[in-house]
């Protein structure tokens, strides 16, 4: 690493980490793309996985979720069609070598439930409350599954892909007026193809 520290760490390192920890917990699959070790486990082994890995990776970084949905109200939809589901993921790491792994599991969209991690990592408390209010995921056994950020009585789950972003709905996009074709259109297209550097 000394010659070119800017280099993105080679994927095999991340794959190795993922495989090592994945083996410990009997992961469904492991991957190390983009220097990010990830292991996928079943919802049933969710708590046990964390309990096992806590010995090696004691630092609880975060817990969050992704709503996978082909139909989206905000942003661009996924490239290919995806099965509608929630992916809950946490990240654990150690505090000596800096190794860390993302643990994820898929739960169904219609009955999003998962046992709570509060018994293993106390810090999961607030993260699970956040995931609960943002995605509507129920964490069974959570001591205090109330709203964290949102005001009382808030309806809907804001981070679900089907939840519209009102600030972008109530105001028309000011860039709609087309006086003439964007003179830069050709440049932009050409730039994209040739990889022209911006503004040099």
């Amino acid at each position, binding site marked *: 690493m*000394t010659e070119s520290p800017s280099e993105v760490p080679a994927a095999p390192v991340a794959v190795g980490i993922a495989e090592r920890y994945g083996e410990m917990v009997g992961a469904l699959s492991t991957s190390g793309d*983009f220097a990010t070790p990830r292991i996928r486990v079943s919802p049933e082994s969710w708590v046990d996985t964390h309990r096992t890995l806590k010995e090696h990776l004691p630092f609880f970084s975060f817990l969050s979720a992704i709503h996978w949905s082909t139909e989206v109200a905000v942003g661009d939809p996924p490239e290919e069609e995806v099965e509608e589901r929630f992916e809950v993921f946490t990240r654990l790491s150690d505090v000596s070598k800096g190794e860390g792994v993302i643990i994820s599991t898929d739960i169904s969209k219609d009955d999003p439930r998962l046992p709570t991690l509060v018994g293993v990592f106390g*810090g999961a408390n607030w993260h699970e409350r956040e995931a609960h209010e943002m995605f509507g995921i129920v964490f069974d056994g959570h001591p205090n599954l109330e709203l964290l950020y949102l005001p009382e009585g808030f309806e809907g789950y*804001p981070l679900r*892909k089907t939840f519209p*972003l009102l600030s972008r709905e109530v105001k028309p996009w000011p860039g709609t007026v087309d006086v003439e074709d964007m003179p830069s259109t050709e440049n932009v297209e050409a730039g994209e193809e040739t990889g022209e550097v911006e503004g040099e």
Partner: protein
Amino acid sequence: MSDQHLLAMHHSEVQVSVELETPDVTLNLGPQHPSTHGVLRLVAKVDGEVINEVEPVIGYMHRGYEKLAEVRTYPQIVALVSRIDWVSGYASEVPLMVAVERLMEIDPPARAQHIRLVLTEMARISSHLVFLSSYPLELGAATPLMHSLRERERVLDLIEMVTGGRFHPNFNRVGGVKPAAGAGSDQKKVVQDLPEGFSQQTLAAMDDVIGVCDDMEDLVLGNEIFVERTRGVGIIPTDLALEYGVSGPNLRASGVMFDIRKTDDYLPYDRFDFDIPTGENGDCFDRYHVRLQEIRQAARIIRQAIETMPEGDLQAKVPRIIKVPKGETYVRAENPKGEMGYHVVSEGGRGPYRLKIRSASFSNLSVLPWLLKGQLVPDVIAILGSLDFVLGDVDR
């Protein structure tokens, strides 16, 4: 008197008043309260001056950045994330850009990396100086505030000199730093490289920053009243810190020698010599001391980086319209407040499909209900301040 003794004494005094069995009073600290740095609210059940139970209420500053990011392009998100932790805006931009670069498999040029590193460390200094200044204010001393903000101003001026913004630099671009911007009708677009005099002024400012660190040691750390107020107060045990995801200086004050700058490679920190200051007891005093030492180390890094600043481009070759290939990555950085990470899920668009922002203050603050139990009201303020959180970083 040893710290354990002090602590034991402190707890025994707490014990005495609990035994009086008076009815609890609910005391609302915040959302508008001088010590909560914004809009944190603590609902405390107090018995006299002793806290029996405390429930932090957050969310007054929730701006929904994770949702907003889904409708924005990556360059637009950069302008957004510097508002998460506004005290060290620049530092929040870097890990996001590194994540995008990883997904696009772009290497920023060495000069851009160095500039990022220098500005990140300046953001660290400015953030820690705010802590050095505001923490004594929680304890009733107003003068350290102005002394330390005086030097912070110089650091902010330097950041502004390069980026044009003091708090929200928006200076990172995919593949490097901002290459050019408009500059008047005669000049048109000009390169946004380091302006003349930057290195020299930076070195001078670093001397002054070290100077104010010395002053703070005299004015605050060495002050017997300050020591009395902070020694043995608000101890975070190591295992609890890890379990709650307490990171950064708060974790190091508890004796864990862990610094993402040493283990990860989001910026070329391995080229520079610097130490990781750690504390022994994990109390408020250690948290103050660790941050003060970190400023010295940051100044040391900046000096080395300025002296070894490489030549070259500011930005790697990138397409004019940034589209990120499908993939997921998590990049974290050692921000002044702790571990700041972005989990970017790209589905091939101009913006992310999902952006999970892991902010340090959120986890650091989640340990509060445990930490504040049984403390006195003045200690609550001392502990709260020592965690060095920013509400924007908590709520995002």
